[in-house]
């Protein structure tokens, strides 16, 4: 039986041109599956809005459209954006995937695990996380779903370099560092998968709205997977 069509959001968005080139749709209370919806809106708007639209970016409770002000018809962009986000949508048809990430929790890969209560790893393995949005770095996905008792403040002194694939917790979010970058989140494991590769057809492994589960792997499997990855 097909799922009933759902209203797009609990409240309509406030629409603002925050500059001559940026249209922001902001929801007071976002729908609980805002990320999935926003991803579907992005895909639809990307197809329907060119030319003059340069980037469409979901936020936690917003959607921002960046335009070329000399090429875009602002009235049309605004009208089209509102049409898309206010249309009823079939939640079952939204693009979102369930992804399992193999993670090794050996001590040397998890230097900050000591800051967490005993049993943290087992707890993490039971949680279904959801990608809220991508930001900070290419393919860096903010994961919702961390229980409050595992919320942990960022490090006072960020590390100058965090290894690619590091599983980290910062405040109320979990994330995987896709590339080597500076980072202030707590490192508690590492995945063997390549989270971002600009040469892949899908450069980012995770997309907004995807669900993520961590699967524990031992060091042999982790090392082998790293060796075999391109």
């Amino acid at each position, binding site marked *: 039986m097909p799922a009933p069509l759902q209203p797009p959001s609990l409240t309509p968005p406030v629409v603002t041109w925050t*500059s*001559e080139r940026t249209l922001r749709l902001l929801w007071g209370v976002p729908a609980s599956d805002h990320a999935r919806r926003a991803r579907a809106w992005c895909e639809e708007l990307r197809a329907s809005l060119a030319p003059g639209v340069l980037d469409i970016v979901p936020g936690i409770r*917003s959607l*921002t459209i*960046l335009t070329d002000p000399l090429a875009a018809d602002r009235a049309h962009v605004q009208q089209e954006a509102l049409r898309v986000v206010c249309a009823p949508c079939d939640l079952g048809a939204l693009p979102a995937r369930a992804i399992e990430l193999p993670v090794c929790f050996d001590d040397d890969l998890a230097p900050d695990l000591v800051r967490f209560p005993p049993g943290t790893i087992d707890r993490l393995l039971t949680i279904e996380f959801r990608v809220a*949005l*991508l930001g900070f770095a290419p393919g860096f996905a903010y994961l919702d779903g961390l229980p409050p008792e595992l919320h942990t403040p960022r490090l006072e002194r960020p590390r100058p370099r965090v290894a690619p694939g590091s599983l980290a917790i910062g405040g109320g979010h979990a994330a995987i560092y896709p590339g080597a970058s500076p980072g202030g989140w707590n490192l508690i494991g590492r995945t063997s998968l390549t989270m*971002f590769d600009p040469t892949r057809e899908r450069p980012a492994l995770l997309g907004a709205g995807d669900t993520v589960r961590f699967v524990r792997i031992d060091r042999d499997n982790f090392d082998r997977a790293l060796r075999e990855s391109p």
Partner: protein
Amino acid sequence: MSALTVIDPGMLSSVQDLGRFGHAWLGVTRSGAADTLALRIGNRLLGNPDNAAAIETTISGGTFRVEADTTIAITGAPCDVRINERTAPMHRPLVLRSGDSVTLGPARSGARTYLCVAGGVRTEPVMGSRSTHATSGFGARDTSTLRDGDAVPIGTSSSATSINADRDALVELFRVSSSPRLRIIGDAFSTECVVGRQSDRVGVRLEPSTPVSPPEAIDSEAMHHGAIQATPDGVLIALGPDGPTTGGYPVVATVIQADLPSLGQLRPGTTVSLISVSIEEAIETLRAREELLDRALPRADDDAP
């Protein structure tokens, strides 16, 4: 393919074109020249498409050697240019012989000078752009900004194209675009700021005479080049081309697109005025600027190098 050798990259040199568009939703920053107007002037002087990549130097300049006959143009922050030991002008095509070296002296004002090459810099594009974004690992040499000894591939120079520049229009273009002011949309809470020392391609720190009391932090949303964030320590950060795609500091105002090149030329210690304008004025200013640029220098055919 011909090459250009980095003898001394100065404070910071990187390959930049007009930027990497359409991937912000994946967390991929736009990057691109901090002063796209200077890059486009340089490219048009050489008959390149606007988006051809060039080398952006920072404040201290740099020295480079060409390993083939080619034509270059130097634009952006004013500096002394030397070809081997001879003084050479900015904003003119300069014909070089293989082995010639070009030195860009320290910028007399502004922050970023561009070394544009006929045929453009031809590093391997990543996601549709040659722009460097060091922290993402996108750039010339494997990953990042330029170092001594790097060989940067460049296009082959087409037979001396002569570009008819309207020098009067070009001078007018410099006049309207080199001003210690930023026109903004929104309310920055302060009309005069001093550019702070920790300013770079990620963001320009604008320190108001009296600290602003920022609005509450927001749920992370899209950020972009020109957005002015109010931070908890009471200063403003105008995001540069390498700024993040999302952020949680409230955006209180946005630098108009026509003034982004001026933002890219701010150097620490400069006092800058912030002037509120309307969206209509912002668009009109941009349109007038583009018309002036087209009058000064014709747009080249758009087949990307």
